[in-house]
């Protein structure tokens, strides 16, 4: 698949000397959902702002659809839709007017049918004549998405799109984003909800202190870095892990009613068979066993901690 956004050694240093981006290089493939993860102040919003023209990069280059974001800014920006982190809308304006305004701003002629389709897709059609201030927080976020979509962008930046949105609406949003992906829109998503990235992203990019730590296919990343835990529930509790089982580095859990065994799925041997044999040899009776995959959140926290160390 070809890259629709290419970022080449992009840097941003503010006047006070703070380096928000350090030689960021990144290729975003057409039609994918890329989740950009990072702690607060990592540089996620700065990167998006630089690509969209809100912040001027200090060094480096970036292209959107082959157009340089500085020298070919008109063509590059016409392809981009941006949903910002903060809800920034004119409170006294009607929903439909603000959406039509955005379409015009991006150089597109009035298209009532398209605006209607976008508003219906986001369940906003019934609210089209409402003033923005009359809408709930979730609805306002939808208006921001409608504004970003109404000029038919091929690349959509969603900066924390579900922040402060209730669980139900968040799931609705996910459906909207999936629908956009199906229609061929490339989506770059920043989020604090790693569950969101896990559920939606094709690839994960982790950024910390202005540097990209990794960019990897989500499934590969979780397989490579994900660890699994085997929980063995015992019929009779034990006070300590028997010395004969020391090589398995077991953890005692639930007041001695369970043992936890961590293993790597990428390894050739997981050691589970030998462990179960050793438990039987030790005379421990098992009530139940279950396995648990480490989440993207655990992987992410591990990566960021490693980077900070």
């Amino acid at each position, binding site marked *: 698949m070809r890259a629709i956004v290419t970022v080449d050694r992009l840097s941003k240093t503010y006047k006070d000397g703070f380096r928000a981006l350090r030689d960021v290089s990144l290729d975003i493939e057409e039609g994918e959902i890329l989740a950009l993860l990072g702690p607060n102040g990592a540089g996620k919003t700065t990167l998006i702002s630089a690509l*969209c023209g809100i912040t001027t990069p200090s060094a480096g280059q970036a292209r959107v659809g082959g157009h340089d974001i500085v020298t070919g800014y008109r063509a590059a*920006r016409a392809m981009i839709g*941006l949903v910002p982190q903060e809800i*920034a809308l004119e409170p006294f304006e009607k929903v439909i*007017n603000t959406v039509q305004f955005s379409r015009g701003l991006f150089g597109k002629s009035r298209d009532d049918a398209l605006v209607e389709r976008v508003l219906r897709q986001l369940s906003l059609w019934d609210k089209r004549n409402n003033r923005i201030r009359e809408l709930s927080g979730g609805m306002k976020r939808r208006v921001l998405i409608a504004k970003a979509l109404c000029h038919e962008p091929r690349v959509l930046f969603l900066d924390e799109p579900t922040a402060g949105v209730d669980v139900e609406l968040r799931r609705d949003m996910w459906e909207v984003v999936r629908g956009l992906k199906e229609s061929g829109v490339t989506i770059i998503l920043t989020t604090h909800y790693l569950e969101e990235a896990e559920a939606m992203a094709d690839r994960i990019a982790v950024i910390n202190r202005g540097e990209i730590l990794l960019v990897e296919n989500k499934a590969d990343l979780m397989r490579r870095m994900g660890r699994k835990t085997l929980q063995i529930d015992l019929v009779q509790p034990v006070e300590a892990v028997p010395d004969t089982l020391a090589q398995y580095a077991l953890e005692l859990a639930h007041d001695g009613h369970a043992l936890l065994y961590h293993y790597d799925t990428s390894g050739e041997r997981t050691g589970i068979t030998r462990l179960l044999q050793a438990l039987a040899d030790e005379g421990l009776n098992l009530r139940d066993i279950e396995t648990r995959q480490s989440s993207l959140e655990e992987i992410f926290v591990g990566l960021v901690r490693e980077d900070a160390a």
Partner: protein
Amino acid sequence: MNLHAIKAIYVYEMKRFFRTILESLLSPVISTTLYFVVFGAAIGSRIEEVEGVSYGAFIVPGLIMLSVMTQAISNASFGIYFPKFIGTIFELLSAPINFFEIVLGYVGAAATKSLLIGGVILITAGFFVDLDIQHPVMMLVFLVMICVSFALFGFIIGIWSENFQQLQLIPLLVITPLVFLGGAFYSVSMLPEGWQTVTLFNPVVYLISGFRWSFFGVADVGVGLSLAAIGIFFTLCLGVVWWIFKTGYRIKS
């Protein structure tokens, strides 16, 4: 050129104006009426004529200037300050438009609004005094140039302002005094000699003088000088706006 974007900004700003049409037009009409009652009837009745023109008619150009300048500034400054204040400026910065197109949209709308207000004041004045405009084309030229230039100036103030107090600062502390002291209600020749020289340093004198000349054919300074003054002011404002967008001053990090 992104004509759709210019139209979008212009229409959006004009809609804001028409949303509050009553307040927008009523306020200048009431204040003009009050000026006529106070200056025209109460004080003006004791002043017979100024440079061959009845005092009531003499103050009309100055009154129009006062409203048009302050309205052009306040509309343009609010127009661009409000998106900064509520954060919607991100949309302007991320759109495929250049500075010239943004300025055309905002300044064009602010200038149109002040032009409409100027027209309403002129009509209102017509109820109080007999007006015979000697140079209607030049009157329109002066009016349009002043509306556009001061809208540009207001745009600069809107970009510069970091809060609502700053937004009001220059119109209140600079523009209003300059208009009042710029011959809006008197002829420069009525001042003592020393003050006549001092007042020539007030750029608004040239604007009011030129505008008044288009009404009555009398002026404090030469018409050419008035046109040059407005031309210089317009060019200066345009230069500053160009620099703002070139450097991203107070709008782009």
